[in-house]
């Protein structure tokens, strides 16, 4: 029963500007932080799992890579199924994001522990030789980001105070 209304002049002006603005659409990355470090490395495994994540510089990958995000890839269960190396990759290159958080959770589930003082992840490889209330000494595996692989270290001193 109200019938149409005739747009007043002010509305016509607004509409005119709105039409023009709609030609310069807002892009999702306009409101996302740029993550430089994340973008310049595109290891095979990473590309297989997270292809759509590459922004803003989209790296060309072979067409047979998955083109869409894998379902449920933002769930903890999904991260639990990723390989250790992939988890370290995500942890290292997606800092400050939920992906890093989920990767950390998954690594802990694989009994990796983050050592704040040495900025590294390590895993106890065998029973420690000596344990005091200060530290324990034993053999550990830690992930070497430089060589991108795991290394074993003998008699590594593990200090409780820094255990997260």
């Amino acid at each position: 029963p109200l019938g149409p209304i005739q747009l007043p002049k002010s509305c016509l002006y607004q509409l005119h500007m709105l039409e023009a603005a709609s030609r310069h659409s807002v892009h999702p990355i306009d409101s996302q932080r740029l993550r430089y470090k994340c973008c310049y490395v595109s290891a095979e495994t990473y590309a297989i799992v997270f292809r759509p994540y590459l922004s803003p510089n989209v790296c060309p990958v072979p067409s047979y890579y998955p083109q869409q995000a894998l379902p449920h890839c933002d769930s903890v269960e999904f991260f639990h199924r990723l390989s250790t190396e992939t988890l370290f990759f995500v942890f290292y290159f997606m800092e400050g994001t939920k992906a890093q958080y989920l990767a950390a959770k998954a690594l802990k589930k694989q009994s990796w522990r983050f050592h704040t003082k040495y900025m590294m992840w390590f895993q106890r490889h065998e029973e420690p030789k000596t344990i005091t209330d200060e530290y324990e000494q034993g053999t550990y595996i830690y992930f070497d980001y430089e060589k991108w692989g795991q290394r074993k270290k003998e008699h590594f001193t593990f200090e409780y105070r820094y255990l997260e």
Partner: protein
Amino acid sequence: YDSDPPEFLEKTERLLREWINLYHSTANLNKVFHIYVQSMNNQGILKTDDSITRFFRMSTEICVELTYRFLSAQQNQSNQAVVEVRAKCFNTLDAFAHLIVMLVKYSGTNAGTASESNAKLNLLKKVLGIIASVVCQDQEIRNEQFQHLAYYRILIILFMELTLGTNNLGISTSSQSIQHQLGFGAVGSNHLDPSFENIQLQVLNAFCQTLLILKPSKVPSFAFAWLDFISHRTFMEKCLNGPNSINAGVLTKGWPLYAQLLIELIKFESPFLRNVELPNSVDLLYKGTLKVLLILLHDFPEFLCEYCYELCDAIPCNAIQMRNLVLSAFPRNMRLPDPFTPNLKIDSLQEITQPPKGSTTTLAALANVSFKKDLESYLRTRSPVTFLSELRGYLQISAQSQPGDSTLYNIPLINALVLYVGQMAIQAINPKNISMSSIAHSSHMDIFQNLAVDLDTQGRYLFLNAIANQLRYPNSHTHYFSCALLYLFAESNTEAIQEQITRVLLERLIVNRPHPWGLLVTFIELIKNPSFKFWNHEFVRCAPEIEKLFESVARSCM
């Protein structure tokens, strides 16, 4: 700005370029920041309020110009090109935004004091105000060529950095003496955050005020970025999920700020939504708004419950789906019985005696109307007897006040009147006793029946809409107004009123989901309860598809 001294522009450009280089080349900005501030001071930038204002305005304009240049040089619209150009722009924009962040975070002396917090807040407000004024001026100058990117980027980065609470820049304070000398705070490594933590609400408010300055009705060219901003996860988090979130039983302080922005957006769209054909750009904005409302319905239903009245006042009558969406919200801890359950006894529901949230705050529209006193006296004593005949006049507005709009009534006033009379009726009856018989023969129902009879078609449509807006989740208002609407149907002596009641309900039902619970149970009661003789009316058969629709609904609930 013609009084801008040329050398000042030169200084600004040089300082800005210097900062951008520092920003991209230094691992720990903290070490160099105080030296940079020193050079700003040496250049006289921090000397007076004017010079600070001029520096920020010029810096903003320089960043904006650069962005336009990059955008105009963009070769094509492929996603890759779009992303690459933006990355280039963000190099400069992000650096400038982070300069503002650091200046704001470092401003003020006497760590932890109110004066320090005020200094931070004042600088932030100043800068936000400067950016907003550059936006407005840019829209006037560039008109259709205006682009949101530079402004939106600076504002959203500022917001993310200044409201995240964690110190993402790895800032730790050292060389305290220089900072102290410059009037910048200089205490232990955490001094930045605590003093900033306690002004988070003011920071949020400062951004909301800036968004109000840039609201779509003022800066339509910025409308899409504006909606993107208020739907950004960090903004929604801060406004709607703040420290006092509903879970603690206390409304979060950001809610009124967010509600105001949302209502401004709907008010902007309203005139366009009043016409059936939406221009593409309006349709785009409208769809975006529906998405935001859907997220609110899913994540923050209590927010929609709280502000449903103001939102309904702003939503145009024929944006039925949008209004249904708002009215469909119900508190998360509430379980709604299936409205199609046979023999559903609404009055046996426990929630039915409770009033809905937010109803106490919304009667501003009635607060200072001329007839308030007469209204209250009539409700109490059914006098003055002339009140009923004068009521229609009170609700009408002159055609001149809304040129081009054929609505002759003050819709928020009608909404407020209906809500108020209903509330008074519920108080008089006692929520436990609401029924078709208890609501009858009262001064409240007199007013409703008078409006149903005395108003013309348009007025009655708005009046019935005001009642239908109360049909929401199980609560005392839904129950009362459901009975009231059915009572008006049963007691009306002209079929036109019964038909219009049916139409008002029907138009809310035939639109795509969601449908408010109270609407469904009311309509089902109307067609199911033989006392209303619904099927005896001619208008039920006014068109084959309408008849079919009635029958299908009837089948599903009988």
